[in-house]
């Protein structure tokens, strides 16, 4: 029972982190109709910049400055890259972001080398906040939860309560009309892209010390962010939140409990074959939930796409 509580907290941390990435990605998507494959690369850049800044100015300055740099870079990518490719259509746009992701990974290796960076939790947060039957919850995790919730509330406030937010929401759905009303839509696009990537940057800054700052960190997270927003429904912020938390908890619980395929199959009335060792399905029978925890989101996505192509909260199918 205690472990369940611990798992809920861990899953929440994972889910919220994922949400910081998927929120930006889904904003960018609903605006430009482009799945930005390089989104996780901006997350990685956030971590590396923050590491570099933290050496000189400490963790907190890194948290402040690194996302700004990432956001400016993101805006630059929109202005000088995507906007140019946009005229060729959606597929080249998507492929552009795909190539960009590869290039950023190579650039990071070029600058920082291939080893993991010793980027770590600031000392002020390096203690155990509380423990539940021997399992300690580090203070940094509590900090992560609060930061991501704060960012979500801030984002929601800006989008729904401010004039800028109204214009953005309108521009998402009716770019031509908004343009006709005298707003600079390309500027809004650039801004939203910048903010979206900056959000990814924040995620990188706070995840870097826990999940490691290394050149493969974008790749590990990259496709799962897509899976999240597809499950949630493309373009839906609430969907992104729900899917992020769902994935966070599913993967956490699947890893925490050894559920065996054999017991599931037996449970639904299929009995174990006698000569399992010789059966060609032997590997299938012996699958356990931790083994497949991280591919569960993909299974979920494929099922959702088959039966409800619009995703959990989505309004349109594509």
């Amino acid at each position: 029972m205690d472990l369940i509580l611990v798992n809920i907290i861990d899953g929440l941390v994972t889910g919220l982190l994922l949400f910081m990435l998927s929120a930006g990605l889904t904003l960018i998507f609903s605006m430009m109709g482009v799945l930005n494959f390089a989104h996780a690369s901006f997350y990685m850049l956030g971590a590396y910049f923050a590491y570099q800044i933290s050496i000189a100015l400490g963790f907190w300055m890194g948290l402040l400055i690194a996302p700004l740099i990432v956001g400016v870079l993101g805006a630059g990518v929109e202005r000088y890259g995507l906007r140019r490719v946009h005229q060729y259509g959606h597929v080249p746009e998507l492929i552009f972001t795909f190539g960009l992701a590869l290039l950023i990974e190579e650039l990071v290796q070029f600058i920082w080398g291939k080893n993991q960076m010793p980027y770590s939790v600031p000392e002020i947060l390096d203690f155990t906040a509380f423990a539940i039957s021997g399992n300690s919850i580090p203070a940094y995790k509590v900090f992560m939860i609060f930061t991501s919730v704060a960012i979500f509330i801030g984002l929601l406030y800006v989008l729904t309560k401010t004039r800028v937010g109204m214009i953005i929401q309108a521009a998402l759905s009716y770019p031509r009309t908004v343009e006709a009303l005298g707003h600079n839509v390309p500027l809004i696009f650039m801004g939203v892209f910048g903010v979206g990537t900056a959000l990814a940057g924040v995620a990188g800054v706070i995840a870097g010390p826990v999940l490691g700052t290394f050149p493969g960190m974008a790749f590990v997270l990259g496709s799962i962010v897509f899976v999240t927003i597809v499950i949630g429904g493309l373009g839906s912020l609430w969907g992104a939140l729900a899917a992020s938390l769902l994935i966070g908890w599913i993967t956490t619980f699947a890893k925490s409990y050894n559920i065996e395929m054999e017991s599931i199959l037996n449970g639904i009335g299929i009995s174990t074959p006698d000569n399992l060792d010789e059966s060609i399905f032997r590997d299938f029978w012996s699958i356990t939930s931790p083994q497949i925890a991280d591919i569960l989101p993909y299974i979920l996505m494929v099922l959702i796409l088959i039966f409800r192509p619009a995703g959990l909260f989505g309004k349109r199918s594509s």
Partner: protein
Amino acid sequence: MKSITKLGAVSALSLIIGASAAFAENIKIAFIDPLSGPFASTGTNGLHQFEFAADYMVNEKGGLLDGQKMEIVAFDNKISPKESLIQLQVAIDQGIRYIAQGNSSGVANALTEAVDKHNRRNPETRVLFLNYAAVDPALTNDKCNFWHFRFDANADIKMDALTDVIAKDESIKKVYLIGQDYSFGKAVAAAANEMLGKKRPDIEIVGDELHPIGKVKDFTPYARKIVSSGADAVITGNWGADMLGLGKAIIDNGFTGPIYTYYAAGSGITGAFGESGKNKIRLISQGGINPIATEEARATYEAFKVKYPDGNIDQSRIFNVIGMLAEAITEAGTATDVVAVASKLEGMEYESMWGGKVFMRPQDHQLIQDMNVGVHTDENIDFDYDNSGFGVFTESTVEMASMDIPTTCEMKRP
């Protein structure tokens, strides 16, 4: 159009390949390992150690035979079996007769089969495969062949030594096994189960699980289970980012016991663990670095540090590869007749500067050597890793580990 492009491309290709095939007097070793991509750091560090060892142990002492120099030719296999096979072919075409590789048993497996086939199909250009780090036991058991020599202890031998050490520690009652879900991870788990069962039947295996390799973002849930299981010790064969992620998560979430590992040192990992891993991370390896085994080794390491201030000698067996190969070539009196060289290599007894005698067992071409279990610490460290002040200090040694471990190898000699 297509044909013309292809023609142009291929002429450029043969130019590049041909240009590097011009010299033949050096004894060349093809180093086929990842030099780009996610595993590049391990590969590059290995390459540096090979290059340094060849220069320091052979070339600066006047070379081999009639003054021939030993040259390491680097090939980037991007840790892909397919690329490795292409690069193997390129290396053979350049007249190279010695292939060194270590990262990934999958690649080693592809290479050893390809070398075997090549040597059977092309007796005039036979090559030897010097495996310095791939530890899948099968390579010197079911899949052994005459051309393959392994200079690292295989996973079973390491586990044998590791469990010898654990068996002596009475405070360990519960052990948790966790590893990557692939052949090597499974081999580690199987060996641990079997050997602990034999040596310490009272130890309870409280967890035995595999996680997807290279896919886990956050190891926290695994760490929770380990802590909750009440384990006194953890054994893992993880490497790379999976090692670091798992180790950090276990420590951060309140585990205090020893974590026995295969690969938690060097390549940034020691640096990244730093203070948090002190006295917790244990490592099974060969070669005495702290305390340094011999004065010769100290001089070697210091010379290495001058050349690579950021580098580590974390695979001291590479020096054994160069030393033993040099000796075999000298004894055989030829570098081109690889069968003669191989015959000298098998059964060779060699005095390693990293401590102890090593023996290339002729039955399976597995090098038998002393195994050390060390602890991650910053005390009494002569040579640290990653310039972090932390290194691995040897706590116990198993001499000539698994000298008589059985092998299923049926060696076919030409």
